[in-house]
């Protein structure tokens, strides 16, 4: 038995925790509120790895089949 971080798995895209300023800029850019973003739960294995708390926003850099790279955002919720 050895430790394995799920962040290294091929199917898990890169998750980045955003700072408050970055969140503000993001919401302004897309004219949305945090509640309108897709969600991710605090119990999610990735959230545990990057120590995300409820209310944080994570930026996800996906490998897209169409665009090469695609950005996505998720609001961390209790769960």
């Amino acid at each position, binding site marked *: 038995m050895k430790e*394995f971080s799920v962040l290294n*798995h*091929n*199917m898990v895209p890169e998750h980045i925790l955003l700072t408050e300023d970055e969140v503000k800029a993001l919401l302004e850019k897309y004219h949305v509120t945090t509640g309108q973003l897709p969600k991710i739960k605090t119990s999610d294995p*990735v*959230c545990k790895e990057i120590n995300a708390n409820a209310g944080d926003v994570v930026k996800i850099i996906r490998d897209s089949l*169409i665009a*090469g790279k695609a950005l996505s955002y998720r609001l961390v919720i209790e769960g």
Partner: protein
Amino acid sequence: MKRGVSSKTAQILCGAGFTLSKLKKASVEDLVEAGITSANAKSILKKIGTPIETSEEKVSQKIIDSKEGVSQKIIDSRLGELHLPPSIIDALQHDLKTIKLTETQLDEILKMTVDAYEKAKVEPCEAVGTVAAQSIGEPGTQMTMRTFHYAGVAEISITLGLPRLIEILDARKVPSTPMMTIRLKDEIKGDRDAVRKLAWEIEATSLLDLGDLSIDLAEMQIIIELNEKTLSQRSITSKDIAQRTRDKIDVDVRLDGLKLIIHPEQPSYRELLQLVEKLRSTALKGIEGIKRIVIRKEDEEYVLYTEGSALRKILHCDGIDPTRVKTNNINEIADVLGIEAARNSVISEAMDTLREQGLEVDVRHIMLAADMMTCGGELKQIGRHGIAGEKASVLSRAAFEVTVNHLLDAAIHGEVDELSGVTENVIVGQPIRLGTGDVELVYRGG
């Protein structure tokens, strides 16, 4: 000053301030700048004795330099300014390297690329969900109804076709045929013996896999004759087996050579049969849930295909490559690797299922479905208990499934329908707020 040069040319040269000594140093371009045709300039220089060849080479060299130098730098900066997806930028960068262009040509190309991209974008107010549903639904009618198929991997049967597609979109907790693809570390992936040993290590082995079972009704006991060859193959001794059986099932086990004699707690027929069932289902060795392993060689590396899935345990096994382990149980992926990995898995599983049937569906439709299924942070099915069941509108929910229940519940709770969606507006006979129906334009004739 003449020396065989026409008087007109001489006049121009004098006007430009050329003296004989200056003229000797001058190159063709200098003369052209002064207003002499290049053919004339060459003949002048020839008469003076300046070596023309070198200056000509210089000229052509300069043109190439200027072309390449300007383009590459400009290409990069121009590409940086564009709002295009990285894949298109990469393709442009790659293709532009192979051709020589002027700046105007470059601008033209970029403009056309951007125009084509903007044209290809989905238009505002487009009913993307409906289009996605149709795009997945229509090929669904062509899919086979047959459930089992031996796809590439001999011996392991996998649910494919329509049943599998339904399974994916319904986000079933456990698929009907769970299966894993395990790739191995570089050190052992080419070594057949090491791979086989690892496979024995992982595969769940029950007592019944190791020998033949017989029930002795007269003595009320179970006798298992262990197979010596199997034991050495799986590197386990008869003593080990007896001990592990005692530990796991807590029964009286006696070892007599290669014979295991097991007594049930109470000597009853029912008890005996239950014990057999227990022996069958308990794994003495390996990972519970991995029922069978098939080893296949795929371009110079051995890959393990398993019947049954246990992602969390497999990830922590020695010898396997944890970054490339795959399972077809999407809920398990959501639990172990997170919601984003589950989204990727929904997309790849659905695409593979469709592709295997020879159907090409644009990945964007599947991506939309996967996004809807995962946007709440957990895997939701597309259906009554998931996305369709969570719609805000009563009429829309009632139109989908179990109509009466929804209407009754809504009446009891006094629900209000805002008539903001598509379905409810179709029901009440209003224009839907989609496409041109969502644009409020007033034409003032005059």
